[in-house]
């Protein structure tokens, strides 16, 4: 790089950083526009083209400006026009551009022949794939992702449920936020947060329930910390099972015994009633009470008196016994929630969701907010976060879960099936009324011989890495690899733990190598255009699904036609001529994303998740649904649902209206769910808790971030984080190899004492990003009875050093 060029880029970088600093500073208390600053992109000159895109990584939904030159992404800048991040990015934002350029991108389809994966053509790949479907269409399953774009997930959902007439499609988001879904459904009758990220600017108290946003959602956490730096008083309370980087910023750290968060939430509710500080008016007008009933997500009604009696045992002292959190801290939480002058926002993610009582704890946290009336004012919100960029948009809204239909529909409901069949122009009865296999069940069935109930013969994985991320890997993944009747297809961008064991590998385009749309954690739908070509023969996942559908059409599969005999993905140009989108050379002759989205958004009014036309998203950095057209023709997003002051579906004078109430009376449900012990706890044989999770440097299974040298250098391999006292007692020194073993598997990895996080005594933490050290060989596949989400946060293990202790 020449000195002139370096100087030029320095000025460009400074302009961008100054613009971001100004924009975020201006966010403060008043929503004034950011001070005018020169657009840093103008400095880069004509050689660099800039376009918007949401970041590829977590569910925050930061927007970046992508600089491309000569067909390559060469620069990344935070987008100051984006409400979410105002020009800031976490350090992964830098890597989102570099993630495209690992040297080992998959560039050609690979078929396993005589035990070896060999290159084949796309034509042969599609033939092989179609052969597997035609073998028995009902035994063909798709396993997708919260990283699917909205159109990709929609196409896959339509292909499976509307085309094959099979509901065996489920995403990896089952593993990360399914309990949040069931929590919202059981409480409000409709999924996704009522509040939004604006709550972080208005809250006086932020409560982190088993949540570490300093590492997992850094831009959001920076938004909170920044307020304190400006002199605002923001109290952060970290309720967790191990100290993290978020703890370092918290005024209060409440360490609880794994699984006992239900007792804490019940303890707060108990105090609100005992102290008379619950919001009687709000509750009497807008809430009802609910208790569990076996196998029934909506439970059964209970009276206020029954609710109060059920909570009676959750005194601060009893909660201390169960949870280990001192009674004085439980009282502190009770007093905070009892203070209506404060604004309180709760945040959670995997800690509450990856829980065999995930639905129950989600409901309880909503209940604490409803009971106290800390709901529906800016800053007063129970808000779940998501770990993937479109867990909300593609999984929850498009409905790629095994029981779901687009727009919040459910396959078990006749009206919802009828709507889908109408929009998809299918013959009545095409969509099955029984949910397909959820993730754990799908992989169990894939691992069993057909004669033993293994009704899944082929799984097509897109945009995820289950051979690393499923729990209890030996039980869920290994068996199918020994059964010649089972066939695994994987679409991905890099070699992964899953592609390595696959029978057929399909190379995919990623991020700005294709058009796309994501939906972030605050109901914000975002759009971007393709900006560079994918390498080699890598192709869009959406095209792959559509091309398979066309191959099946040619073979006469009746499900690939609608009731008028047209192909289910039939697409025409402006003159009404069919565009052969099954031919990749013609795929971008029309904007397939726009066509699919316009069809999909017809579903969105059913549950008041109204979406705007595709072109509105082209103009913006995302819009939060419901998005409603105004009298002047413009489209307006909604920041706070169910509250009259912002939600257009709440009639004047009502104040609040939970218009999808499970009791059909406009009320939200306040749940009582008792604390119950976990399915597996430490004992004499396996005396430690094992908690798994993520680290700042790596995103999920590390297939992208592992190809970024500085990240790999900073966090080269997984480790076992131990408490100093436990290590001393076991004779383990820092960095020494230890064996961590559960009843399901065993792993050797280095020990880290006083490392990034700090687990309490009797607890060990292992991150899951490292494909060479698969901690999910140890984890438990026990799951929540409603959400079917497994518990990755706790199981029993034992720890020992690899080398025998030295003789005294």
């Amino acid at each position, binding site marked *: *790089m020449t000195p002139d060029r*370096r100087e030029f*880029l*320095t*000025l*460009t*970088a*400074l302009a*961008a*950083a*100054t*613009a*971001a*600093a*100004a924009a*975020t*500073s*201006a966010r*403060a208390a008043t929503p004034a526009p950011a*001070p005018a600053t020169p657009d*840093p992109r103008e400095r880069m000159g004509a050689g660099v083209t800039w376009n918007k895109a949401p970041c590829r990584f977590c569910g925050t939904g930061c927007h970046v400006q992508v*600089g491309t*030159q000569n067909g*390559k992404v*060469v*620069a*990344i*800048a*935070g987008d100051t026009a984006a409400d979410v991040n105002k*020009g*800031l*990015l*976490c*350090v992964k*934002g*830098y890597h989102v*551009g*570099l993630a495209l*350029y*690992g*040297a*080992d991108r998959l560039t050609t389809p690979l078929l396993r022949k005589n035990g070896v994966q060999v290159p084949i053509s796309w034509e042969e790949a599609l033939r092989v794939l179609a052969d597997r479907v035609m073998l028995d269409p009902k035994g063909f399953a798709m396993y997708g992702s919260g990283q699917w774009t909205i159109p990709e997930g929609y196409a896959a959902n339509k292909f499976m449920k509307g085309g094959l007439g099979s509901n065996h499609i489920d995403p990896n988001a089952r593993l990360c936020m399914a309990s949040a879904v069931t929590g919202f459904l059981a409480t409000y009758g409709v999924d996704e947060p009522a509040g939004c990220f604006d709550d972080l600017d208005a809250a006086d108290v932020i409560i982190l329930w088993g949540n570490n946003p300093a590492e997992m959602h*850094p*831009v959001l*956490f*920076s938004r909170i*910390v*920044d307020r*304190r*730096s*400006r002199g605002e008083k923001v109290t952060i309370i970290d309720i967790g099972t191990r100290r993290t980087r978020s703890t370092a910023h918290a005024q209060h750290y409440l360490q609880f015994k794994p699984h006992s968060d239900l007792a804490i939430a019940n303890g707060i509710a108990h105090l609100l009633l005992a102290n008379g500080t619950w919001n009687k008016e709000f509750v009497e007008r807008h809430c009802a009470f609910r208790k569990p009933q076996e196998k029934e997500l909506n439970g059964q009604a209970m009276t206020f008196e029954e609710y109060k009696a059920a909570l009676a045992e959750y005194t601060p002292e009893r909660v201390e016994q169960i949870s280990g959190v001192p009674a004085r801290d439980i009282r502190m939480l009770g007093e905070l929630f009892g203070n209506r002058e404060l604004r309180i926002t709760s945040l959670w993610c995997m800690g509450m969701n990856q829980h065999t009582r995930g639905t129950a704890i989600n409901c309880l946290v909503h209940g604490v907010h409803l009971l106290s009336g800390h709901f529906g004012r800016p800053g007063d919100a129970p808000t779940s976060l998501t770990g993937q960029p479109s867990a909300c948009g593609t999984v929850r809204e498009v409905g790629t879960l095994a029981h779901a239909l687009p727009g919040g529909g459910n396959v078990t409901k006749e009206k919802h099936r009828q709507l889908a069949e109408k929009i998809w122009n299918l013959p009545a009865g095409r969509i099955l009324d029984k949910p397909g296999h959820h993730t754990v069940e799908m992989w169990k069935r894939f691992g069993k011989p057909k004669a033993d109930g293994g009704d899944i013969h082929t799984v097509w994985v897109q945009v995820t890495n289950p051979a690393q991320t499923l729990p209890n890997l030996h039980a869920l993944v290994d068996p199918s690899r020994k059964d010649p009747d089972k066939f695994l297809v994987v679409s991905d961008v890099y070699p992964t733990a899953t592609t390595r064991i696959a029978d057929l590998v399909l190379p995919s385009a990623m991020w700005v190598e294709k058009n796309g749309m994501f939906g972030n954690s605050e109901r914000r739908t975002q759009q971007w255009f393709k900006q560079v070509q994918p390498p080699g023969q890598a192709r869009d996942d959406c095209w792959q699904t559509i091309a398979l559908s066309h191959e099946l059409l040619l073979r006469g599969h009746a499900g690939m036609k609608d009731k008028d005999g047209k192909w289910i993905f039939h697409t025409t140009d402006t003159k009404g001529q069919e565009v052969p989108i099954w031919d990749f050379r013609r795929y971008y002759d029309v904007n397939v994303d726009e066509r699919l989205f316009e069809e999909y958004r017809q579903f969105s009014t059913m549950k008041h998740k109204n979406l705007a036309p595709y072109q509105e998203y082209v103009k913006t950095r995302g819009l939060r649904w419901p998005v409603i057209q105004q009298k002047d023709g413009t489209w307006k997003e909604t920041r706070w649902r169910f509250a009259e002051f912002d939600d257009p579906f709440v009639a004047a004078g009502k104040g609040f209206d939970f218009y999808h109430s499970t009791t059909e009376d406009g009320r939200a449900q306040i749940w009582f769910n008792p604390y119950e012990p976990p399915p597996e706890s430490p004992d004499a044989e396996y005396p430690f808790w094992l908690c798994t999770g993520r680290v700042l*440097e790596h995103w999920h299974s590390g297939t992208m971030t*592992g*190809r970024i*040298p*500085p*990240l*790999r*250098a*900073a966090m080269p391999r997984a480790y076992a984080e131990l408490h100093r006292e436990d290590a001393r007692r076991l004779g383990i020194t820092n960095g020494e190899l230890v064996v961590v073993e559960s009843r399901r598997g065993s792993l050797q990895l280095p020990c880290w004492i006083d490392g990034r996080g700090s687990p309490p005594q009797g607890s060990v933490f292992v991150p899951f990003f490292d494909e060479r050290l698969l901690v999910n060989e140890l984890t438990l596949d026990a799951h929540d009875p409603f959400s079917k989400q497994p518990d990755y946060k706790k199981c029993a293990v034992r720890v020992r050093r690899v080398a025998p202790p030295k003789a005294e």
Partner: protein
Amino acid sequence: MPVLGFVLTHPRPERLRERLPEVPGFAAQGAAHGPRLPAVFHTADQRADEALLETLRGLDGVESVDLAFADFSDLEPVCP
């Protein structure tokens, strides 16, 4: 050679302004907006980036380090 534009959050950014020029790779800094201070660094290669980040995060009083701009036009593809 990556050129990185950061926004550093510090309750007393004027103090941070004095410290930043001592950090290896420092190239420029702008005026603070509230607690947010813009600054630019050059690193030798990607491997140096993480060390720089750790250094910045470790500076006394720094509460967060956010990225605003990155140019990596001269970097080659990498393989693990």
